[in-house]
């Protein structure tokens, strides 16, 4: 199947060409790479131990040669905490998006493809998740499940699939009307086969762009949950850092080195995902193709 690979490469090549020309997309990619490297390699260079508390004078010590970004509310190095937070924030963002993507895609395709009563019921069910206030719903689920990092991932995944399901369903409805679906049925293909072999691959590109935007939202959600105290204290994410910054009054005592960097990091990562999602949408969404 060498040729198939060649085709994949060719398609990927075309995609990369368009991508490289997309300024926002490239900015996003570079930013994301930066954060990915930070998350993967950072802890090797500047390991962080959440239990590495300082003494009285270390608490909120401003930036110094030793601690470039100063020290936090427990006298730990902010830079190291930031680096270790990258790992948490990114994994939460990516994993919860995965859950939401799988659930949303599955429900969207099944609802859109099946139509009729199944569709109506599934979509009403989806609506419920769209109309329930999202943040409190997450807070409640987090309270129900307890705030371990895995639960946070689950909670974000479980509350964010509805949007994806809608997008996927809408897309499925248009793909379903394409003749190649009819053709597949004519040669005797079953529903499962059609959904996985024909609908999914054609729905996926748009889902993909959407997914990246969902990751952005997931990271913000994690930050918000943590900020409101529903995070995992043992795995301090940027949101958790902000929570502690705020709880310990970093803003009012002027410890900007503890308040700004995690916030900026969140903005950076989310922005990189947003830019990427925007760029993929530009490239993959046929509606946005230039005339």
């Amino acid at each position: 199947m060498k040729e198939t690979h060649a085709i994949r490469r060719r398609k990927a090549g075309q995609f990369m060409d368009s991508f490289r020309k997309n300024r926002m997309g490239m900015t996003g990619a570079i930013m994301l790479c930066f954060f990915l490297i930070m998350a993967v390699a950072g802890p090797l260079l500047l390991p962080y131990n959440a239990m590495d508390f300082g003494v009285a004078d270390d608490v909120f010590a401003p930036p110094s040669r030793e601690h470039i970004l100063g020290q936090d509310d427990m006298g730990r190095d902010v830079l190291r905490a930031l680096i270790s937070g990258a790992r948490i924030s990114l994994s939460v963002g990516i994993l919860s998006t995965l859950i939401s993507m799988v659930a949303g895609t599955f429900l969207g395709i099944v609802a859109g493809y099946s139509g009729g009563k199944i569709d109506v019921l599934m979509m009403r069910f989806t609506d419920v998740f769209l109309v329930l206030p999202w943040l409190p719903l997450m807070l409640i689920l987090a309270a129900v499940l307890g705030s371990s990092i895995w639960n946070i991932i689950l909670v974000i995944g479980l509350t964010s699939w509805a949007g994806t399901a809608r997008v996927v369903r809408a897309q499925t409805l248009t793909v379903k009307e394409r003749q190649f679906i009819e053709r597949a049925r004519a040669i005797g293909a079953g529903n499962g086969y059609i959904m996985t072999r024909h609908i999914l691959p054609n729905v996926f590109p748009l889902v993909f762009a959407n997914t990246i935007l969902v990751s952005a939202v997931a990271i913000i959600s994690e930050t918000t949950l943590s900020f409101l105290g529903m995070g995992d204290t043992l795995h301090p994410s940027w949101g958790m850092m902000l929570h502690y910054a705020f709880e310990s009054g970093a803003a009012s005592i002027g410890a900007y080195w503890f308040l700004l960097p995690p916030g900026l990091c969140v903005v950076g990562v989310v922005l990189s995902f947003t830019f990427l999602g925007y760029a993929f949408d530009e490239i993959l969404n046929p509606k946005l193709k230039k005339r």
Partner: protein
Amino acid sequence: MKSVMEASALHVHFKARGSFIQEIFSNHQKKVKAVDGVNIQIGEGEIFSLVGESGSGKTTVGKALLALEHKTSGSILFNGEEIPSGTGKSSRRFRQKAQMIFQDPYQSLNPRDIVLDIVGEPLVVNNLIKTSAEKRERVIEALGWAGLRPQEEYLYRLPHELSGGQRQRVAIAAALILNPQFIVADEPVSMLDVSIRADILRLMVEMRDRLGISYLFITHDLSLAWLISDRIAIMYLGKIMEIGSSELIVGSSLHPYTQALISVMPLPRVTKNKKRLILKGETPDPIDLPVGCRFNPRCPVVQDICRRQEPELAEVTPGHQVACHFPKKLLVGAP
């Protein structure tokens, strides 16, 4: 001639998307009578054309014959046996014997699949092959039949890397790969540029000649039907108005609708002062069919009886059936 496919009193009705209240509270559903009592027989090696305006029910007949659309009533015999409906074993066998070619080669091929997978898909779906080498072999064979040579050059192409004609050939190859006996070709050339139509039509005729495949050729272009088919049926609002050999239909049609169709058909000659029979108005709503002959509101020679009684399809001359109370030749057409 032995008939391969035979439909009698075929009805296909669709639920009209009525009002919401009706849908919930009422049993009296309005219906779109897309196919409303159609009888056709298609002989072995015959090209049978179904001609009619948009919405007349041509595609629905084609799909019903392939069990892709649920028939409301009537019988469909394939090789003398009622066609299976479910997804059982006999249904599988039937699917392999009866195939379909679609109108739009841009739409009917999955844009993300390569030719090898598209053409080989019927084999995979029906578990007819074991190895990918076998698949490749059979695909190459089918591409050859469809006139895509050298085959290897096409195997790994994506649909958008093919011209329209090539795409339609790929679709045909995919239909041929299972050695079908009967193919429904639903407007296979209407989306193609005139300059390549002929190739596809010729290919179909060639396959009939070589492999003895029977076709139901669906088209809105009477001249194409005339060109390649043995017999033609003219459809109007779910019913067949006239059936006969190509020559009879074009040369001595008896139904005013057929005659009108022929008279307005564009021809590659100067026809500026041709006498045309242009029907007034538009095709009625298939949900609210007119009483009597369904053509009566537009008929140029309508009589009282036409508004009361629906004419049956009746043989006027051998092999020429018409559904009209007053079948006769009007003086129209011919430049």
